[in-house]
């Protein structure tokens, strides 16, 4: 994005600007949410996610993914940077090319871009299935929709697979299995938010 963000991307109030020298010294990412909006997101119980999937997160995901408000990708840059910038190789859950064409942006990778988290596309999506339309059992039973990208050497490496949301965990399990079978040393998973399954 080319424009500096001066107002909260959710409610539109003016943001207090961070002085540029302190930004340079501390190398902090810009805030794009005001404190009030930020407080509506609850920290996750699990260590493998930053937030819980609550009402605010549901609305945020809808605006970001479904409505396509790309500017929101900066919302949690600081948190994602702190959690993922150092350590294992980050592998975002890929989007099927058809879906990408329709959405015009890759919502998972863009979150990482905005958080200045390096990542490698070791995975690609070979099956275009929409999760929402299927039952949980069907989803678990279905075959792995992911494949290791051609020419990618994963053997002996440590990975963390990243997705925006964890609901059943199936997607992450499939991605993890895919990398493990190709010889990865370890595969962790991490998401922006996770829903508490009752």
């Amino acid at each position: 994005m080319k424009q500096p963000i001066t107002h909260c991307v959710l409610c539109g109030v003016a943001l207090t600007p961070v002085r540029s020298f302190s930004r340079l010294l501390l190398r902090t990412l810009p805030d794009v949410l005001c404190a009030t909006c930020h407080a509506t997101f609850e920290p996750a119980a699990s260590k493998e996610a930053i937030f819980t999937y609550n009402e605010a997160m549901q609305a945020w995901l809808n605006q970001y993914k479904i409505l396509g408000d790309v500017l929101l990708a900066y919302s949690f840059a600081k948190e994602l940077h702190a959690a993922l910038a150092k350590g294992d190789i980050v592998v975002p859950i890929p989007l099927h090319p058809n879906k990408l064409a329709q959405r015009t942006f890759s919502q998972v990778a863009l979150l990482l871009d905005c958080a200045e988290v390096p990542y490698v596309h070791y995975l690609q999506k070979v099956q275009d299935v929409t999760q929402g339309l299927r039952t949980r059992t069907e989803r678990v039973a279905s075959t792995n929709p992911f494949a290791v990208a051609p020419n990618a050497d994963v053997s002996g490496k440590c990975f963390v697979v990243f997705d925006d949301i964890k609901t059943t965990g199936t997607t992450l399990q499939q991605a993890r299995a895919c990398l493990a079978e190709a010889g990865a040393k370890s595969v962790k998973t991490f998401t922006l938010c996770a829903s508490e399954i009752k």
Partner: protein
Amino acid sequence: MKRYRGYIPPAKLRDFYAGRLWDEARLPEGITQEEVARAKRAGYLQAHVAVDERCMRCGNTHIIAYDSYLYCRHCLTMGRLTNQTTLLTWQGQRPRFMRFSYNESSLSEAQASVSAALIASLQQKRSHLLDAVCGAGKTEMLFGAIAYALKRGLRVAVATPRADVVRELAPRLRHVFPSTCMHVLYGGVEKQAGCPQLIVATTHQLYHFYEAFDVMIVDEADAFPYTYDEALQRAVYQAKKPQAPIIFVTATPSKTLVAEARRNHYGHSSVWRRYHGFLLPEPRYSALFHYAKTLKKRLPKKLKDWTLERLKRNEPFLIFFPTKKLMHQALPYFTALDARIMSVHAEDEARAEKVQSLRDETCKGLLTTTILERGVTIKNVQVAVVGAEAAIFEASALIQISGRVGRNANYPNGDVVFFHHGITKAMDEARATIRKQNEVKQ
């Protein structure tokens, strides 16, 4: 524009696209991509780039760029528009509207004279400001003007900021104009058949129209001119034909709107009495200091007593809260008094049903955010505002809230109480306005 001979576009295309400004990719039900492409090639549909340095739909110029895309955030909720989106407008024949019938309702003398003034303004194609106190019977005064336009085959839009008001207006209009094709439009409503001659819509829905209407009626226009949302105001102007008059209807016109009406020689009617002739109930103040703190533990005594009194007298009531959070905090203490007390807020999907259950008396009282401040009519309703000093309760909001009470001729009085933690200018202004309206001689 060149047109192919021998091709006549299907009527369903005209019915849908005439007057609309519509994203090509969002195909309406029952219309195929091929049909659209064909009509486009034949020049019946014109394609426009939705976003360049400005959004064609909402006029916003603060455009966001990423990769090779440009998109508009301002009207995002209506479906995202980018520089890759094509918007279509209809270039073919305009639809003709022949069917008309009118169930005329009887009007009071005051209502009849306003109705005549509105029709006179339409005849001269000039805009008109109608300011009338809450409960004056504004809608009834509009029927004559709408009938005048519909009878002549003109297209009419009735727009209002709130979906609740749309839902309240729609059945009344349907009853008065039974043979007119009318569409009711607000977020999430299903597609309706036929080409609408009359639409009742939230102001936001006007973004989907382009030079469509011969008469534009803006209900609850007190926020007009919209200083906080110029785009929404542009939507009103863009949806109507350039020369089409606007009827602004409001109980609390802004000074700017009154000045604009005078400057541009709009027609202007004022109605200071309710249709039943009784005075407007004046709000009273009641101090409820530190209510926010108290509400964490229990109901403040005065508020509890007020509620119990309503329950004892079996009077339906609305209690307004400044925030959803405070309301939810308070709800359990109210349901402890009577389980048939409920709460509503903007995102509540069961809102319409809950309001109806209050009318049906299966619900005893509703806690609400400002969402129910206007448009809602409930017989014999009593009203309290908790935290009337909060900034969200502007004078116009408080006037509207007070206006919920005493609308029915059989119950022309009722209690309006502002529970507060300090008196604000807005509260005083609201009360002073109501007093002034009551003092005006008829």
